């Protein structure tokens, strides 16, 4: 039978684990609020940009001179998959879910004989993909040192992707990230970045139904906006990811805290039982010793 001391030690260590998970849960909750605000604040820009691009692209897509970012490079052979995960673990199935979605996509592409390149954003995604796809990972971007992800971080990735596209390193680019639905639900999502997927929209009309004037012309504006749009989309994915990571972390740490509580209860019960058993045993020894006299 384990000694009482070892019980006391285990109870003490589980108690300190519970303190830590509780603290992590609270930190995640406050970070989540901030991340959610950031994701919401970024929304007007992305929405406006989408609306303008959709209205411009509708008319220009079939033109022979349409920008490559819109029309594609004419091929569909090399795919770049950006896998955006968190840098840190301890957030339940968050990273695994994203990686699983990415893996599905990669396997589907490879079955169709496409070449796949992977750009990992976030350390955990790389760790999980490295075993299977080490040769296809071209690079990893980490934000471990970055306290708060800003637009410049996204723009740096965007620039890289655009440079590669301009150099003809890939034909189609998509990003896998986790869409933040609510604190308890994050949905791994696949979104195609290049060529741009346009939701159908007519020409943009003003409140009085008049058509917009463009300065310089529509094609020039479109050429200016498309690269920006890539950055904005990446930025949005990163923000959603950050919010999702904290949401998942909060839920994971909450259940860890609760579980630690249960473990403590069980251990305390066992400890008391053992203690009582020992007292009873000692009493029996004394009584039987007295009877023998």
């Amino acid at each position, binding site marked *: 039978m384990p000694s009482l001391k070892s019980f006391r030690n285990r109870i003490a260590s589980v108690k300190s684990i519970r303190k830590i998970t509780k603290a992590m849960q609270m930190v995640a909750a406050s970070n989540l609020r901030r991340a959610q605000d950031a994701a919401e*604040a970024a929304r007007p*820009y992305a929405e406006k940009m989408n609306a303008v691009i959709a209205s411009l692209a509708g008319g220009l897509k079939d033109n022979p001179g349409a920008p490559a970012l819109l029309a594609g490079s004419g091929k569909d052979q090399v795919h770049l998959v950006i896998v955006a995960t968190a840098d840190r673990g301890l957030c339940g199935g968050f990273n695994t879910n994203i990686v699983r979605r990415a893996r599905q996509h990669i396997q589907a592409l490879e079955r169709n004989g496409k070449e796949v390149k992977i750009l990992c954003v976030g350390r955990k995604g790389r760790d999980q993909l490295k075993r299977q796809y080490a040769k296809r990972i071209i690079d990893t971007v980490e934000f471990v040192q970055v306290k708060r992800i800003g637009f410049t971080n*996204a723009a740096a990735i965007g620039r890289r992707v655009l440079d590669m596209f301009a150099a003809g390193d890939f034909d189609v680019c998509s990003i896998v990230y986790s869409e933040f639905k609510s604190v308890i639900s994050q949905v791994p999502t696949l979104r195609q970045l290049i060529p741009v997927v346009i939701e159908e929209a007519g020409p943009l*009309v003003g409140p009085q139904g008049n058509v917009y004037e463009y300065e*310089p012309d529509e094609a020039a*504006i479109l050429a*200016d*906006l498309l690269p920006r749009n890539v950055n904005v989309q990446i930025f949005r994915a990163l923000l959603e990811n950050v919010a999702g990571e904290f949401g998942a972390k909060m839920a994971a740490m909450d259940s860890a805290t609760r579980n630690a509580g249960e473990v403590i209860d069980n251990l305390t019960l066992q400890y008391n039982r053992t203690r009582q058993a020992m007292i009873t045993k000692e009493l029996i020894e004394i009584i039987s010793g007295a009877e023998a006299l």
Partner: protein
Amino acid sequence: MTDKIAFDIVSPERLLLSDEADMVTVPGSEGDFGVLAGHMPLISTLRPGVIDIRGGSESGDLRFFVLGGFAEANPSKLTVLAEEALPMTSVDAATLEQRIKNTEEDLVLAKNESDRARIAEQLDHLRQLRSAL
């Protein structure tokens, strides 16, 4: 004239300012244009420059430094989507100088012709801005 034009200045990260003003001057890529209430619907790209807000209801006279982006105007509302926007009061000669230096370095490192042209243009705008300061 009592009509004011409502305007939003939005950066990718957040809504910077939402207010209404008598007039907002925007640095369009084809030249500055002033937006008053009832402006015709217009979408224009921006060059690095200064957004000049006159007679804002809450903000008063205010100047914003922007580094590209685009603007959408219609008779009732102006929306500026700025790549990067800073209140003019927080821009000083030193930061601008630093940025010019960075851009100059970029120019040296630029690999192809179109990149170089773009950066050279940006540098030009920044130098203009420095002289305006």
